[in-house]
């Protein structure tokens, strides 16, 4: 059942171009940065991981408006609730689908960005590992934000204001150095993945009344 929910979300994201847009956006940001900073190879290699993280954060935020609101409006969430499938389960499925939708392709694109910035191999390997650990947290945050802002006018802007401050720990530990940062990153990500379905489920229940 949860598999059917995930597959449906992925199919909808694919049909609306939601799977390619975040990667294109991510690559565009990564390409624009060197132009803005200038051709200082040492500087680019140093800011590269941070830029990749900021771009990943924005890419995760990009599809937030169509993650939850359309299903609330069209009555899908109600029909699932009538079948005993609560908001928490729906949110968990949406987190999985959102992660599958943007994270693997983003990690592949990060290799390209690594080349553009001339990030050294060891740093790039740590960056990929950090993305693997951190993106589930970003996906969870995205779905929770989507549920909280669903139905608001100008939900996209509000979603950015809600989500970006909450993503700070992921940015700090993700773009940091060393093993300790990775462990804290994993802890923050785990906390978000566990907490977000509860928050999103409650938000969807409130939206129903």
């Amino acid at each position: 059942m949860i598999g059917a929910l995930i597959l449906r979300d992925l199919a909808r994201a694919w049909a609306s171009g939601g799977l390619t847009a975040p990667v294109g956006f991510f690559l565009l940001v990564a390409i624009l940065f060197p132009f803005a900073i200038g051709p200082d190879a040492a500087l680019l290699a140093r800011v590269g991981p941070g830029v990749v993280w900021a771009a990943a954060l924005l890419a995760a935020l990009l599809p937030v408006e169509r993650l939850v609101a359309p299903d609330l409006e069209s009555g899908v969430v109600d029909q699932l609730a009538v079948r005993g499938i609560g908001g928490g389960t729906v949110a968990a499925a949406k987190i999985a689908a959102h992660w599958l939708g943007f994270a693997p392709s983003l990690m592949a694109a990060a290799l390209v960005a690594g080349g553009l910035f001339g990030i050294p191999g060891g740093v790039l390997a740590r960056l990929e590992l950090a993305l693997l650990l951190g993106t589930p947290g970003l996906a969870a945050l995205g779905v929770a934000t989507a549920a909280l802002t669903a139905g608001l006018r100008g939900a996209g802007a509000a979603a950015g204001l809600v989500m970006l401050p909450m993503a700070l720990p992921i940015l700090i530990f993700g773009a940091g150095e060393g093993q300790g940062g990775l462990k804290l990153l994993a802890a923050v990500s785990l906390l978000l993945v566990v907490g977000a379905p509860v928050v999103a489920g409650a938000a969807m229940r409130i939206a129903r009344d």
Partner: protein
Amino acid sequence: MSLLRLDGIAGDRGGRRLFAGLDLVLGPGDAALVTGPNGAGKSSLLRIAAGLLTPAEGTVAAVPAGLADARLALDEEVPLGRAIGWWAGIDGRAADLEAWNLAALREVPVRLLSTGQRQRANLARVAASGRALWLLDEPANGLDTASTALLEARIADHRAGGGAVVVATHVPVALPGAVEIAL
């Protein structure tokens, strides 16, 4: 054994009391017809029976229901057969499009369907859920005469098979022997 039991329930909408002290018991084969002007609380009553809203007062005991309301909840870009099939899959059953005169529309995307066809698709999903209790909110909206007769026939079949139905409508729908609730 009752399929739906409402004991002295009251419904609020936006802080305003819509109805109060409502009792209803439906067993297998029973039907209830909810009537009333716009905004009287017909939809709220059905959502309370479906467990989507908590009543302001009173208690609700109901078996899991199939709900058809104003929102179709079918993916617009997907062919009708697959859209209904997805829900039937969640319910672990197969949808019978034939019974609702929808078989010819199996390959048509949902967004191209007419109002009446969408309504029949909505009802087909409730039927496909296999639930004993049907909650139908304005099921005859947008239906032509032939389709309304089809709806009445399907409801009669469902009741004959031991099911119960609550119909909220402002259009006449024939429900022989139904309890009438005027809000």
